[in-house]
């Protein structure tokens, strides 16, 4: 696998995902976890956790993280460039030539079809990503505990991230120590 492949993969992701960063996640998962096996499902969720904990667009952060995991600093640059380039070029064209295209009836009809489908794509990605997390009671309970504030209370994502990290640490602290294997802190 080389830099061009990383660049082209994220170029494809960047060019074909409509509806903002979260809409890109199902496609990123499909490419990164399923097709190229660059990351496992859990590793991918961890990448998303880092991406969401830091400022910036989730999709861009995820691209940088995945690129780095696969091929170091040059890999992250290839992924970043690929993810950004399509939307940069498309917006440049729109800003320069046709702001009116958003009022075109055909464009509107196509998007009326795409929009509800984006919700299904994201929901499906959660289902697949959660395969291992949901199998553990701790993960399943925490997920439903956090879902309510995530949807209805318009919680700042950072608060949920902090709460999740705290819950993980708390569980670790409360667990009986002896039978645990020693973690290696290299």
């Amino acid at each position: 696998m080389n830099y061009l492949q990383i660049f082209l993969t994220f170029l494809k992701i960047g060019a074909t995902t409509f509806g903002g960063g979260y809409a890109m996640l199902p496609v990123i998962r499909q490419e990164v976890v399923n097709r190229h096996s660059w990351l496992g499902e859990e590793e991918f969720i961890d990448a998303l956790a880092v991406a969401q904990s830091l400022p910036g667009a989730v999709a861009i952060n995820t691209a940088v993280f995945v690129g780095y995991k696969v091929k170091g600093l040059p890999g992250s640059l290839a992924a970043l460039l690929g993810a950004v380039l399509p939307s940069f070029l498309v917006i440049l064209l729109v800003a320069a030539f046709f702001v009116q295209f958003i009022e075109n009836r055909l464009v509107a009809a196509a998007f009326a079809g795409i929009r509800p489908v984006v919700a299904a794509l994201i929901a499906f990605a959660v289902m697949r990503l959660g395969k291992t997390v949901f199998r553990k009671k701790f993960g399943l309970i925490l997920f439903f505990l956090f879902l309510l504030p995530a949807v209805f209370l318009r919680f700042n994502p950072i608060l949920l991230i902090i709460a999740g990290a705290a819950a993980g640490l708390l569980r670790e602290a409360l667990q009986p120590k002896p039978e645990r294997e020693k973690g290696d802190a290299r």
Partner: protein
Amino acid sequence: MIILQLYLSFLKIGLFSIGGGYVMLPLLEKEFIAVKGWLTATEFVDIIAIAEMTPGPIAINAATFIGYKAGGFWGSLFATAGVITPSAVLVLLAATALKHFYHNRLVQAVFSGLRPAVLALIAGAAISVARATVLNLSAAVFAAAAFLLLVFTRLHPILILLLAAAAGLLVFR
């Protein structure tokens, strides 16, 4: 000079928009309509509509659009670079640190709690998108059909999006 200003303005916005693109909208509004006056309120609404109809994250879309309006091609380039810079640097730092500490017991404990939280956030996004877009029966049929296709076939999500666009042209025209 305006190019440097665009870079720095978007650097600032990129640094403070924690929690995804939509968090940055109020920041953009304040910086470019109220403070700098580079944008009208109508253009701002246009940007949101265009960002939703074009590929990619809303942060990149907004930076490119505002940069172009204020400073032409170079304006759009520097605005986009500005909005990316902070997150790219921070993610790289985090990824480098994690390479050394990923297998640490406490780091793994943190991730065991972060995973369900992240999944809840993404599921929350799915529900928010559904509540905003599944507004009538045909939209509900579209969403349900896409979900079933995803579950029972190995179709790529991109193909599903293309099918949805084609079906949209037939149904909603």
